[in-house]
């Protein structure tokens, strides 16, 4: 080293180790998430893609061509696409007015109703499917009402295995996505903007169209994208409510694997779906970037007011009817059906569910499925929290390219189908350790699905902690450890609990991946419900309903706990 170079080096000296230390810390934090994502997501998905493109170990693009030109695959893809588009549009049409009512109108019972409409979203898809099966079947309360009204001549309405049932269930399931996302922003929009437009001479409708709608666009686009993704990759709902000719790609992957044993077909379908999902995510990214507007938001409790005038009251009444009819009645029917036995109402289904004898359908006592679910759910929550918290911390620490990449990589599982993940586990996890028969696969798969939610909950909170809070605490005499305990922990602690609640609800209700990897003697509640629904007989159906009610209660309880803990904007999902 020359003498002349030294002073310059010394000047730079103190910065370099610091930067290096930061980089090392970031890499250290990222190590586990990268291994987790690589092993349990990237590798299985790559394996599927490879399997699809090279069934014999050699690249054969002919397979791809064969599958894509196959008319039955084409019709599945077409059905998947159009039902997703129609579901998304329907959900927006039904839920946007609901978002207005729940975010801008004040009325008695609003808080309770707001919590209630969120319940369907955390319901396992299997439960949603069975609820609509009960609601739309020949013995539904709708038909009972028709009979009382019209006598024996009444037509029997049976919507099971129809597209209508699927669409209704999708609207039911995703209503809360729109209400929460759009309503969340709507409640923070300054009402004076619309007032200003009115005073300037705009009619109510014009003020909405020209001021409110453009300002809500980011939230509407975001919720539409999420609903589209969920319905495009819909599995449990379509598996239960659909029928011949009414299967999504996701359901076809399941069928190709478990019934047709056609792995190349399943792989190609998974690849097809992955490409579609990534394309949709890219379009969504573009759209939201363009729609971003800097605006001043106000406290949500200042924007709500009691409905006045005919239009406002009409909106409130209409939305209450929709919420009661569409969102709450399937839940009520679920409970009601769980109480129906061969001899009228009774607790038989519940008694059998909790009895300690091995069920022939389930191969295990039903209570054991409950135990499995809770055990797997807790394990998955722990894994998701650790991986998610590490990744979120790394992403907050350093906003370099590396963390940005991991940030986005962690979101990809959100858009990838659960069935693909489960299927990928089965074909890829024989190396380096053969995990395919391990009960560990279930919580690992569930954790993979839950991790993006953990990151999404923690990241905004971690980023929002004002550096000056820490500085203020330090100047007031707090040691670094004390600063962490007094400032960081109380703020992040609540977010961690919210994330834990979400992870648990997601893990307990997870079906798509679990149905692939759960071993026959270790079924979870959703798997047990699906098996029970596959059997004929009033008793099996009743037990499925009872189990669904139980599962719904567990996830709803987790959700209500989250709602209590929710702070500010965090944890919208």
């Amino acid at each position, binding site marked *: 080293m020359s003498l002349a170079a030294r002073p310059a080096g010394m000047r730079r000296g103190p910065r370099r180790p610091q930067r290096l230390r930061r980089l090392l810390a970031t890499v250290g934090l990222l190590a586990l998430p990268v291994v987790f994502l690589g092993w349990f997501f990237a590798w299985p998905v790559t394996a599927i893609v490879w399997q699809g493109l090279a069934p014999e170990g050699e690249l054969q693009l002919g397979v791809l061509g064969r599958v894509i030109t196959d008319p039955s695959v084409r019709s599945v893809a077409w059905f998947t696409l159009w039902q997703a588009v129609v579901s998304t549009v329907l959900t927006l049409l039904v839920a946007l007015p609901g978002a207005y009512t729940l975010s801008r109108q004040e009325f008695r019972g609003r808080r309770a109703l707001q919590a209630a409409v969120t319940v369907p979203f955390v319901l396992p898809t299997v439960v949603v499917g069975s609820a609509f099966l009960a609601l739309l079947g020949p013995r539904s309360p709708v038909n009972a009402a028709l009979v009382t009204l019209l006598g024996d001549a009444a037509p029997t309405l049976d919507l099971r295995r129809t597209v209508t049932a699927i669409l209704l269930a999708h609207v039911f399931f995703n209503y809360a996505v729109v209400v929460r996302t759009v309503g969340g922003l709507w409640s923070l929009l*300054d009402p*004076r*903007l619309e*007032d*200003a*437009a*009115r*005073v*300037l*001479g*705009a*009619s*109510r409708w*014009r003020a909405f169209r*020209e*001021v409110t709608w*453009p*300002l809500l666009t980011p939230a509407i686009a975001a919720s539409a994208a999420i609903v589209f993704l969920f319905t495009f990759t819909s599995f449990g709902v379509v598996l239960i409510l659909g029928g011949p000719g009414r299967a999504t790609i996701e359901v076809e992957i399941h069928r190709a694997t478990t019934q047709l044993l056609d792995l190349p077909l399943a792989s190609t379908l998974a690849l097809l779906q992955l490409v579609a999902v990534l394309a949709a995510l890219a379009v969504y990214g573009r759209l939201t970037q363009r729609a971003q*507007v*800097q*605006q*001043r938001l106000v406290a949500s409790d200042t924007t709500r*007011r*009691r409905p*006045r005038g005919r239009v406002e009251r009409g909106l409130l009444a209409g939305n209450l009817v929709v919420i009661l009819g569409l969102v709450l009645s399937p839940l009520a029917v679920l409970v009601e059906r769980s109480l129906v036995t061969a001899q009228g109402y009774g607790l038989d289904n519940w008694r059998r569910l909790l009895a300690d004898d091995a069920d022939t359908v389930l191969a295990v006592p039903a209570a054991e499925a409950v135990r499995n679910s809770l055990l797997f759910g807790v394990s998955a929550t722990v894994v998701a929290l650790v991986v998610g918290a590490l990744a979120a911390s790394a992403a907050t620490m350093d906003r370099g390219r590396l963390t940005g990449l991991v940030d986005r990589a962690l979101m990809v599982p959100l858009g990838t189908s659960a069935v693909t993940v489960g299927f990928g586990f089965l074909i890829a996890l024989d190396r380096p350790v053969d995990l395919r028969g391990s009960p560990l696969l279930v919580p690992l798969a569930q954790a993979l699905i839950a991790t993006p939610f953990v990151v999404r909950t923690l990241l905004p909170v971690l980023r929002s902690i004002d550096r000056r809070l820490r500085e203020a605490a330090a100047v007031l005499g707090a040691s670094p450890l004390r600063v962490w305990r007094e400032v960081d922990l109380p703020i992040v602690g609540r977010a961690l609990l919210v994330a834990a609640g979400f992870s648990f609800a997601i893990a307990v209700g997870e079906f798509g991946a679990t149905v692939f990897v759960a071993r026959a003697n270790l079924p979870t509640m959703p798997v047990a419900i699906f098996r029970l629904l596959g059997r004929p007989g009033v008793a099996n159906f009743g037990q499925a309903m009872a189990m669904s009610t139980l599962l719904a209660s567990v996830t709803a309880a987790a959700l209500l706990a989250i709602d209590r803990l929710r702070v500010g904007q965090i944890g919208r999902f």
Partner: protein
Amino acid sequence: MLELRGITLAYDETVVVESLDLSADDGAVLCLLGPSGCGKSTLLRAIAGLEAPRAGTIHLDGHDLAGLRPDQRQVGLMFQEHALFPHRTVADNVGFGPRVRGLDPDTVQQRTDEALRLVGLAGTEHRRVDQLSGGERQRVALARAVAPRPQLLMLDEPLGSLDRALQTRLLAELPEVFAALGTTVVYVTHDQNEALELADQVAVMRDGRIEQQGPPDRLWRAPRTPFVASFLGLDQQLPVEVDRHEIRTPLGVLPRDTVSEAEDALVTGRTRAVLLPESIRLLGAEEAVPPGHLAVTGTVLRRRFRGDHLQLTVRVTSQGEGADLLTGGAGAAGDGTDATSGGALLLHALALGEAGEPGSEVRLAIDRSGVHLLAPDDRA
């Protein structure tokens, strides 16, 4: 001409404004002055049609506004914190009113240019509103409010969010803008300086009622209640006792007839009086007490530099005949804004030059015509 009769406004169960009467002449600037939460903004919203009154009528140029929607009312409202449309450019914001009122694009363009020129912002048409400075936003908001040429222009704390230098500058420009428009203006503020400077008429509001309305100079010379006096910044108030012939004050006794008119209706008994700031003067060492003045002696407590003058705080040591008023739980005391402090009497006097070192003895002359009786506070 704007005329409000018996207006009552309420949010749910809370009554914000109660049977209020108010009027503003054509082309006049009416300032609504009052503390935050007194119902000023709600009143503007009601005139604009954004709140429905529980009772009362609002007439604009002889037309009853009841039943008209906000977009049918031909009024302009400049919102507190401006409420500019964040997703639109300056020109789109200003042109919004003319456009939604169905004017053709050329006229919209013309009105937009006109309004922007009026507020001195020509040339900013294509900028986004989030790129504007505070002062520019304020001007855009004003231009947007006037662009549809409303019959009535209302401004809600238009200078509230700006720094002091900008406030001073815009305050100087506003009268020209109002004059150029020629419409009736209702201007809401909690700053007495803004109100006194801009208004033809000031209405002091308190708890949803008008406490006093009048031209600024009359309000200043003859505030009706302790609240109005305090809100205008007249905080030298004394407990007094009045009978038909004289006014007993802690500073001495004044004959009743030397006190200004307009007090005849006042009751006798205990009430308060305000000392106008210009009525208290430092006397030179040898200077005789001018006729019509009351002389007191005291000790200088503080000397404050106020730029163009010095303010002396003097503790009065000469005890007048009414000194018992200071301790005797005086009349309508309770506002906390008066000249008495823990049984002592403190006066603020203007001084020029070297006079009044802290601790020194001084003599003050109080002009009797600057002592104004206040009505007992009926809502303390």
